[in-house]
């Protein structure tokens, strides 16, 4: 019985994990192809995950701090020591499919950045969603974005959409 249970768990995990491994392997392979075709210089990647607030209840506020579960995580992986500027254009409302608005707010401490994949060591941005900085000696820069949703007591149940707009400029080119 124990063998069967063990076997079942292993099969479930393999079935769940294999597609992830395949996706990751594909991404890595694809990146390598780009390097070979174009140049010996490292490609400039921006990777990111989206900010996820989960389910929101009418008449409540929901905040996510940078680095919390659900916050957006980004990493620039490019050429070493490159000077870059990052400018964020952030929405003030999200639009529902039924046409209603949902308020979203980003404050100065909702943006953290750093050179390690560790939001607890992040510095906070306090300058109008603008950062003048550089990539480190490995070509990396990490940043995290939180935010706050405020749902009205009569907020319509709906999916509300919007976009975060990130401008990355190479300033020593």
């Amino acid at each position: 019985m124990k063998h069967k249970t063990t076997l079942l768990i292993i099969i479930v995990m393999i079935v769940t994990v294999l597609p992830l491994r395949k996706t990751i392997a594909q991404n890595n392979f694809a990146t390598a192809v780009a390097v070979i075709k174009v140049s010996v210089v490292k490609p400039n990647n921006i990777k990111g995950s989206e900010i996820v607030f989960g389910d929101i209840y009418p008449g409540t506020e929901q905040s996510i701090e940078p680095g919390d579960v659900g916050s957006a995580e980004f990493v620039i992986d490019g050429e070493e020591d490159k000077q870059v500027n990052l400018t964020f254009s952030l929405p003030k409302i999200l639009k529902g499919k039924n046409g209603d608005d949902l308020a979203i707010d980003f404050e100065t401490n909702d943006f953290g950045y750093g050179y390690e994949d560790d939001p607890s060591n992040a510095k906070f941005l306090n300058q109008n969603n603008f950062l003048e900085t550089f990539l480190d000696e490995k070509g990396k820069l990490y940043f995290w974005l939180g935010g706050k949703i405020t749902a009205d007591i009569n907020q319509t149940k709906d999916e509300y959409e919007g976009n975060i707009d990130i401008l990355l400029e190479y300033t020593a080119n």
Partner: protein
Amino acid sequence: MKNSGIRKYGTKNNLIIYRDRNIFLYILLLIIFGFLSSAAKIYSQVAINPIAIYMDEKNRSGKIVVQNTSKETRKIEIELRYGYPITDQDGKVKIKYNDSTSSEDPSAVEWLKVFPCSVLLNPGESQTFRFWGQSPESLPDQEYWARPIIISQPVKNQSFEENNFDKITTNIGTIYRVAVSIYYRKGNVNTGVNIENLTHNISYGKINFLIGLRRTGNAAYLGNIILRLRDEGGKIVKEIKRETAVYFTLQPQIVLDIADLSKGEYKAEIELNTERKGVQTSDILNAPRVMRKLSVLL
């Protein structure tokens, strides 16, 4: 006997080892599963190469390869704009975009073409965007500039199904805009730089240098600023290196942390050179090394 584990491994001690092995196996698989799940959270959105394109009258074309490494189809567009780095009064570098250019501006935007301008890229697909152009003969010999902005945005699914949400949820996408550079060199081009002024102030354990630079020649100065601080014995106690691009004038700020230095007289040494990493030698416009020294009293 249904309990084959006990039957196979016999003694009670062996049974404990067998169970321990199972627990170890579960934990190991959970760690692997957890690692792969967390690895799947962050995924590539867009990869761009290169971030600088050098063209001239012999080589009138260039290309950028954009790859969609995300899990969703994305729309990739390219906008061509004219812009160059400037600094504000605090020495912060920003890109100044001039959408309406005059004949004085060395803009390549008007006669440079890009194809395609816009594509949909499925996950894992890549696209080569080609630039080509020929500078009008009437234009003087010099370097002309453009800033391609690569825009990567999610493609919204147009759903005509009746909305029937029983809760409030959000769907927040990310639009990436990446601004890179094109240099088109017409005829004889050369560059250089002069240090026009150099100031510093000391506060809160830091020296802030403002380095006023003016380009010479008819092409952008693409190089490095190296700032060294030497003690009275000539030993380098601090050194910092930054890439710089002087299109017209620039007054970048460089900050040295001196909290760990003892009081005394030091010499600051500023060097500018055109030794760029990651750029083909044939694309580098060499210029004479520039040096400036000043005394700093801590």
